[in-house]
């Protein structure tokens, strides 16, 4: 329990069980974010389970117009997370799919609509859950970093995530937040968009990378792996020395467990020496 300011009177009455929805990208590309999320949830007083039957929330299919497959995947998620107090995801994008789009998908199927709404009500993006439901307050920790923060579009506009991660991060000593210009502009990831229209995506991520560079930050933090991989990939292609981290790793104090996104153990060691 160390390092977390708890306000017990505001917290849920019993010790809640949280089902972690790992998300595809964290599962495949960066398990460290999943473990950081587990640590944060346990520190906040939750029991964490990871249902084995979870796969993908269905967003890629839904956004590509493949509604039938998206609904099949949504039914799987609804089943996998039935009867759990809360569902928490380290992603605003997948969170938006469940909270906003599942009820849309089942608008014409009353039985599933009820279940979709019930799941939507229990589902939270990680920083929102810690901040608004568990009311942890700022999370104590230490990281020497001048950092830019990227507000991912779905989280920002579908779920209203903006202040929560900043409030949690305000407890991290040594961390200086430097807001960038055009902070609300998309980074150009957009799921399949970035591989279907790579030239347009490149222009968009370059605008973003320029804005990050203009802050002079040496770190970039955000809450969605897709956007972070896109920006990390472009920062590195352009040879810019900015270390990219998911907000969960910074808050959980587990940065030592994995090098920054797209960097190797050796480059992390070099950074530390420098």
């Amino acid at each position: 329990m160390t390092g977390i300011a708890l306000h017990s009177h505001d917290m849920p009455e019993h010790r809640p069980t949280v089902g972690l929805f790992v998300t595809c990208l964290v599962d495949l590309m960066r398990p460290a974010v999943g473990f950081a999320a587990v640590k944060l949830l346990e520190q906040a007083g939750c029991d964490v389970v990871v249902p084995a039957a979870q796969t993908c929330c269905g967003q890629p299919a839904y956004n590509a117009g493949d509604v039938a497959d998206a609904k099949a995947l949504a039914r799987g998620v609804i089943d996998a997370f039935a009867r759990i107090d809360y569902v928490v995801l380290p992603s605003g994008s997948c969170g938006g799919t469940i909270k906003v789009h599942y009820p849309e998908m089942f608008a014409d199927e009353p039985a599933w609509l009820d279940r979709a709404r019930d799941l939507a009500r229990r589902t939270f993006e990680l920083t929102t859950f810690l901040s608004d439901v568990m009311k942890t307050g700022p999370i104590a920790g230490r990281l020497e970093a001048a950092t830019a923060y990227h507000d991912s579009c779905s989280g920002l506009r579908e779920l209203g995530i903006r202040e929560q991660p900043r409030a949690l991060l305000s407890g991290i000593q040594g961390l200086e937040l430097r807001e960038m210009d055009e902070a609300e502009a998309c980074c150009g990831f957009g799921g399949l968009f970035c591989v279907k229209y790579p030239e347009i995506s490149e222009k968009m991520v370059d605008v973003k990378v320029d804005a990050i560079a203009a802050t002079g930050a040496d770190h970039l933090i955000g809450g969605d792996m897709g956007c972070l991989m896109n920006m990390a990939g472009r920062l590195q292609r352009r040879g810019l020395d900015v270390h990219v981290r998911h907000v969960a790793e910074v808050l959980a104090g587990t940065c030592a467990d994995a090098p920054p996104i797209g960097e190797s153990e050796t480059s992390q060691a070099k950074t530390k020496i420098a």
Partner: protein
Amino acid sequence: MDSTAHSFVDNAHRALHDAKLQHSLGRFKEGFPVKRRAAVDRMPEFDALREAAREIKDHAIANLDLYLERFTERAEANGTRVHWCTDAEAARQRVLEICRDSGARTVAKGKSMIGEEIGINEFLEAEGIRPVETDLGEYIIQLRHEPPSHIIAPAVHLSKDQVADAFRSHHRDYPETRPLEEPEVMLAEARAVLRQEFLAAELGITGANMLVAETGSVVLVTNEGNGDLTQTLPRVQIVIASLEKVVPTLEDATTILRVLARSATGQDLSVYTTFTTGPRRGGDLDGPSEVHVLLLDNGRTEMLGNEFREMLRCIRCGACINHCPIYAAIGGHAYGWVYSGPMGAVLIPNLIGIEEAGNLPNASTLCGRCEEVCPMQIPLPRMLRQLRDRQYRARNSPAAVRYGLSGWAFLARRPALYRLAMSLGVGGLGRIGRLKRNGGRFRRLPFADGWTGTRDLPAPAGKTFQQMWSERGGRRQ
């Protein structure tokens, strides 16, 4: 106007490599969005106003037949002649008949997107009638034989030099070596040239921002006053308007005006807002002696009955375009037809067919900024998704996307198989990643050019979270 929407990818490629365009787009982003923000911040009740404006349009659209009939009745009572046109060809023919009847050779033209939609300028030219655009931006692009690249700022893609070049090559009465660096100087020259055209024109054509059913009035908004000269100087006036422009009352029109300019340019109100109600009456000092209003359907009634109905709320303020990161990257011409940005990506496939404009709804990250700033709260991202849905069902999406998604969905619906496939895939990639001396990321990966062509791809850790969770004996239920 002929469409190049089918060549969207090539259009975008050219736009991204056009240094002058990129320079203009870079400046553009810092203009309207900043001014809109300031205008909204100055007005605490903006959201309530937006809500009221949306309700007015929803009500008008739900009762479109009623209000169009009322508009027609009141306008005709004022001496206006109302013409119903089902499509672009019908509208062009009607305009031509009116021009012929009035013996017009020169037509002064106010800025009108419906005019672009029906390609009125090329049509009239081919019939030996000379249309002269009188909005400065429209005038410039007319000289350059270009379509507008933005619905409210048609020449936004151009630099000062390009405008000066156009003036030098067309204004032959002016000395070749005159200085034309300052915008004020160029403006004065365009004014002088256009003043003669206004006086020469026998007929004026404008669009309409709104039609008021209660009074049979036409509402026109401009910042240059050219609309008023176009409406009042020539003997005959034609207004071309699409059906959804009608609102019930004058009060409703003023509510919409309050969100229109703020959303568009950040002005509290545009410089000129003109209500025109019929031709000149006895005792009037000026005004046309004939006024015609063309009510154009051109696909609107079809949208009235499908999932794109809410698009008919659009008041053409351009806020979605001004805040769109795709538009900011490629500009308006890349979209290939009259409209651009998010509203264009929804409207163009609806008006000219999704087969022609299939890329437009796909070339979006669905970032949602358009819907956020839309004064009419049109769910543009939802509509882009619905167009994709339509393509997917018609099997018009690219095969690679269809098969890729089906394969992914096949696995994702079978959790055990999915976990196995992902762990094998990630294990393989992780091994390749570790073999590379500088690990951590891939600079090139076969079949992943879309990604690695422009950015590095972080290498996976070698095991999935699910594998590691099982190995650590983590709780499943």
